[in-house]
């Protein structure tokens, strides 16, 4: 008990801690965890922490960092303190996520067909026509089952008891679900007692649900057992571990472009006994690399002609080509309108206020307030190429100002949110660190399914707001309690 109370005193009072609130006492979901932790011997926990890392190393749960030779394969640090969400909090999140995902699918269908939202004057036409993520080849194409985003991983952040914001929609190829599953497995193995004391909703059904959801989207849904495959760019891709993990857990083949070709109007994979047709391909490569005949001709990763088969209804590609426009950071700022336009309801989940730097008056505001804002590249990801005003040096701000002036349309800006914290286990006991949350959503004609849990990323450095694994962030097991 001594330890946790000390930490409570230390936690930064201005931001919301998910265990201790704003210094107003232990929050309910953490009650049993706190009792358990108070009884634990820190030395044993430290040993457990090392044990967890050893398991990850042995299993090869690694990611590759681009352009860093010495660290070709790295582990994402794992913290043993779970991030705990109550069932009540989750139910609200679920409703918000479901609403948002429905809107995103309706939006995608609309912009590749009649573009009602543009006709209605709710979205400027150039947001679509001039957007690199808009794929003209998809105009007039309706994917099997009408689903565009089969798998979504919406990034959420929290600033208070009841305040969740969507940071990014990740509608193309969200990664990290293997960490959700492996983190849970690791916790179950190391601290079984915690799971008998708390009613934690299971996440382990995810691979089966994923398989079911993908199968339900097969082009010819009358096929009893559609052939599903996971497509990877190969073993050097940063998320290769996850690709093989998902193929393994679903019991399907893990294919690369070189395994595939068009045979009799279908996409088929080369097996030891000849070519075998695939119905649904869960691809983990970008649109641009998908088809050298239709997109980037330099791509050696894709399948020549897959887009033609797709347009003829011969295969389901998950997620559909062209979905990237829905998680574009410039489109993001319109999401509240988009949700309202397609669902007829106010958005349940809030958007972070966003200044579009393409707009001259917004640009002026952003330039005047750089030191207080977060500025992101419209097409960037992984925390690269962004400016975090409050922690940046004068020099960094000055340099960024020049970049911003020369290509304003390339940037958006947001206020620095006071992200919630969750304790991590450090040498001196529990210490608060900033987190975000990525729940995983599956969409099929049968409905929308959200796994109770997700990937919690945590900034391991004190005060840091950058949770990206490529920038030294870690992960936690995420619990949703059953009520």
């Amino acid at each position: 008990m001594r330890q946790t109370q000390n930490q409570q005193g230390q936690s930064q009072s201005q931001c919301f801690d998910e265990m201790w609130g704003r210094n107003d006492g232990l929050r309910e979901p953490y009650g049993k965890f706190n009792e358990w932790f108070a009884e634990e011997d820190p030395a044993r926990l430290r040993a457990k922490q090392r044990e967890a890392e050893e398991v990850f190393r042995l299993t090869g749960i690694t990611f590759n960092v681009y352009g860093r030779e010495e660290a070709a394969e790295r582990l994402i640090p794992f913290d043993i303190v779970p991030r705990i969400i109550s069932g009540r909090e989750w139910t609200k999140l679920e409703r918000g996520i479901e609403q948002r995902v429905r809107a995103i699918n309706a939006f995608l269908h609309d912009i590749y067909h009649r573009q009602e939202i543009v006709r209605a004057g709710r979205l400027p036409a150039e947001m679509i026509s001039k957007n690199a993520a808009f794929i003209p080849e998809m105009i007039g194409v309706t994917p099997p089952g009408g689903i565009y985003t089969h798998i979504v991983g919406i990034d959420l952040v929290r600033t208070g008891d009841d305040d969740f914001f969507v940071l990014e929609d990740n509608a193309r190829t969200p990664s990290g679900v293997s960490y959700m599953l492996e983190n849970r497995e690791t916790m179950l193995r190391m601290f079984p007692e915690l799971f008998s004391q708390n009613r934690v909703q299971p996440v382990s059904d995810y691979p089966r649900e994923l398989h079911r959801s993908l199968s339900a989207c097969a082009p010819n849904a009358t096929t009893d057992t559609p052939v599903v495959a996971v497509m990877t760019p190969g073993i050097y891709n940063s998320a290769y571990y996850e690709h093989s993990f998902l193929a393994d857990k679903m019991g399907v083949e893990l294919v690369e472009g070189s395994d595939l070709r068009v045979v009799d109007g279908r996409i088929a994979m080369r097996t030891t006994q000849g070519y075998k047709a695939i119905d649904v391909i869960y691809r983990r490569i970008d649109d641009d690399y998908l088809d050298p005949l239709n997109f980037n001709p330099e791509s050696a990763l894709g399948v020549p002609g897959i887009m033609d088969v797709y347009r003829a209804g011969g295969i389901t590609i998950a997620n559909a080509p062209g979905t990237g426009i829905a998680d574009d950071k410039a489109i993001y700022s319109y999401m509240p309108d988009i949700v309202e336009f397609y669902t007829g309801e106010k958005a349940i989940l809030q958007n972070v206020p966003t200044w579009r730097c393409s707009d001259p008056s917004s640009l002026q505001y952003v330039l005047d307030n750089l030191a207080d804002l977060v500025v992101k590249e419209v097409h960037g990801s992984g925390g690269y190429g962004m400016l975090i005003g409050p922690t940046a040096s004068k020099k960094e701000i000055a340099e960024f100002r020049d970049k911003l002036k020369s290509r304003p349309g390339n940037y958006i800006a947001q206020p620095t949110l006071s992200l919630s914290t969750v304790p991590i286990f450090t040498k001196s006991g529990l210490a608060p660190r900033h987190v975000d949350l990525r729940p995983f959503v599956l969409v099929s004609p049968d409905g929308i399914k959200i796994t109770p849990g997700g990937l919690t990323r945590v900034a391991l450095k004190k005060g840091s707001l950058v949770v990206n694994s490529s920038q030294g962030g870690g992960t936690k097991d995420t619990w949703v309690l059953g009520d």
Partner: protein
Amino acid sequence: MLGKTAGGLYWMSRYLERSENTARMIEAGQRIALTRSSSDEEWISILQAAGTLAGYNAKYDTITGDTAIDWMLRDPANASSVMSVVEMARNNAKLVRTALTREVWEAINECWMVLKDCLARKVSERDLPQVLSKVRQRAAFVRGAMHGTMLRNDIYDFARIGTFIERADNTSRILDVKYYVLLPTALSVGSSIDNVQWESILSSVSAEGGYRLTYGQKVLPHQISQFLILDKRMPRSLSFCIHKIRDNLEYLTQDYGTRLPSADMADALCRSVSERSIHDIFEMGLHEFIAGFLLDLSALGQQTELDYRFNE
């Protein structure tokens, strides 16, 4: 199963087998270096048997035990160095990870992690025995995990074919490099130099104990040939390996319900070994026999790749 997966399993197993064989050859070379005065000749034949003499000569001007060991253990420029092949075995394992049990993957991954660590720097003479035994031990762990946890299906068949093609290739190369000391005419020489050579051949395929059990203390060259080529009980003999390859191709034939050219080739190769006595082989020429076997073996490997569509 994907053709690529079959290929990955085959190559993963070949590379793992090669790591162990290379360690064994270094061990044999080092032993001779420690017990006899002149060993440079021995390192030349070892590099030759490992198929890396040309690469070595391109990098070094002279042959010493020190540089030969470093070259064979850890030089990234040598595609057959222990570190290179373990790295390639792991990359192939990564490629076929969905076909492996967790135990097998972890054994390979750990093999790579352990060796990467202990081969990060040049290995001193003092640490060499320990490092070499680690290489063999790690390969044994992987084999044990495969034996104990994998289904006996096509996945296992392709892995086994790779293992035995590599092993047969290794034994034949050792015999090919040293064939002249095994010729019947060599017996009349009977010098102590020949004893060294015979000892080296047996130890580089871990066969000293097996040989003694079978033939007693007296080492005779035609018995060595008999043992390493024709003895079906000796797990590194050509006969043993080629029969295993044939069996596994036969399982695939039954499993898939189609007989492909590779199965016939393996059958023919089996006959070419089992229908001959060691005297027939000496009659036709030991060197000619081994050279022919190596060619047939390589053709069989290529035919297997083709039959089961490893590549596009």
